[in-house]
């Protein structure tokens, strides 16, 4: 890729080079970008047939990739404190957001990153996050590493102890349950919050109307692939 991608945008990747099973592309957030080489990385977990086939692709093989697609994060550098929350393989969009802000001169002391994992064994996923000069804290479900409990509870604790400045902006990506909890907390604290959503995406470009999520308070659906995947937390009903 020629330019630093907008954090939160995604690639639509065909896992197989030939054949019709799997048939459709799969969506992956852009994880990392190397400005020297133009190389783009994704970070993914095997969830089913598509990602399983993808995991068998060998170095040097060519993949069919469409993108970057979607509407990513659009956050000015003037915000007071950037609070990033990632659950499991939700790391990529918020990692790239931290990297993008740092690159534009945003002070790492004003970035807090809460990384939620099921257990310590998953920690290698966060290797690159650990290298960023930001405030990084872990939470594990089993307490085997860092804060014991959900990453949303860690967020609540930090909002309560005032360590996130006076006017933080929250950006989160992860499983639905986590996003729902973050959405509830942001609402309760009146904190501005953006969520990067996942959904099953047959086309990725806005034509099939398969990927929709419900708009909050309205009998309307919006496309996650086009209007999203990043939404303001007040916009959508999870």
């Amino acid at each position, binding site marked *: 890729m020629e330019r630093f991608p907008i954090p939160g945008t995604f690639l639509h990747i065909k896992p197989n080079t030939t054949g019709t099973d*799997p*048939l459709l592309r799969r969506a992956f957030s852009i994880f990392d970008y190397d400005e020297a080489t133009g190389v783009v990385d994704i970070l993914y977990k095997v969830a089913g047939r598509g990602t399983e086939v993808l995991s068998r692709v060998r170095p040097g093989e060519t993949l069919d990739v469409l993108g970057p697609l979607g509407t990513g994060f659009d956050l000015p550098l003037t915000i007071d404190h950037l609070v990033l929350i990632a659950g499991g393989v939700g790391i990529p969009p918020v990692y790239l957001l931290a990297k993008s802000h740092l690159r534009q001169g945003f002070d790492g002391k004003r970035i807090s990153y809460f990384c939620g994992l099921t257990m310590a064994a998953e920690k290698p996923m966060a290797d690159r996050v650990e290298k960023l000069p930001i405030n990084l804290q872990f939470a594990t479900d089993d307490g085997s590493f860092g804060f014991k409990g959900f990453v949303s509870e860690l967020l609540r604790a930090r909002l309560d102890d005032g360590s996130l400045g006076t006017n933080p902006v929250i950006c989160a990506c992860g499983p639905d349950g986590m996003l729902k909890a973050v959405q509830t907390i942001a609402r309760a604290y009146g904190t501005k919050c953006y969520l990067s959503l996942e*959904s099953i995406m047959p086309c990725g470009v*806005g034509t*099939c*109307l*398969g990927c929709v999520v419900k708009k909050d308070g309205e009998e*309307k*659906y919006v496309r996650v692939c086009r209007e999203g995947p990043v939404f303001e937390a007040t916009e959508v009903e999870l």
Partner: protein
Amino acid sequence: MTAPSLNVTIGGVEFKNPILTASGTFGYGEEFDEYIDLSRLGGIVTKSITRHERKGHPPPRTAETASGMLNAIGLANVGVDAYVRDKLPFLRNLGTRIVVNVAGFDTDEYLYVIDKLNGHDEIDMIELNISCPNVKGDGMEFSSNPQIAYDIVKKVKGICGFPLMPKLSPNVADIKPIAKACEEAGADALALINTLYGMAIDPFNWRIKLTNITGGLSGPAIKPVAIAAVWKTASVVKIPIVGIGGIMDYRDVIEFMLAGATAVQFGTANFVQPDCTIRAIDDLTDYLGSRNIQDVNDLIGKAKKT
């Protein structure tokens, strides 16, 4: 040698090639503008429109299955007024044929929508989606019964200012009487097939994959069903047939034409490869050239029995 001719004529309308996009898989055309040169297409069939805006079914609306996918979008669309106001202007002067797919849940709705479209000269043809449940009748699809299909096509034809192409459902015991009924009612062409009923359940969490329970199956998995439907229909009607179902590339186009189709529509393939139609046009041209076939019409119905 001159380049082979790809022109086909359906219901008196000339298409520059037999490759169209299928309703519901190409939005209103706009979304693909940045990926392909729309003017190269034979035609664009737009998403089904109804009298009023429809939000569609709650998600999840799709599930992938072996070489196919299920969808229960629920005919989500902007409604005919917004279609005419916001979507038609983009479709004007694209340099390709515009086929507008119309859906309805009772006869009045079809007539209402057609009436609103009449007079808009950017439209070249109407594709009538008669695979919707007839809410005022017995809840059966309009296209599941020859008499019901005849009545609706006859009434619509009476007021429709464009060539009319009913789109048939494969969810019937025998498609032939339905096709014949549409022809007798005045249809100018037939499009087939729409999606097949299907359902999928996750074996690990026991959940039905679609909120709507059942959905429509599309993609390569349904191609043999569609080929047989085209073949059978071609044996009983004289009007042109537009073949749909699992078409991925030029070889599938040829297969449908050999079975009796005059043109085809690409559906699910657009999701896999946004430029699938353009590639197929190029590959079809090469295929005809390499075999010294001067006219694509020479393929229609030429399948040989073994």
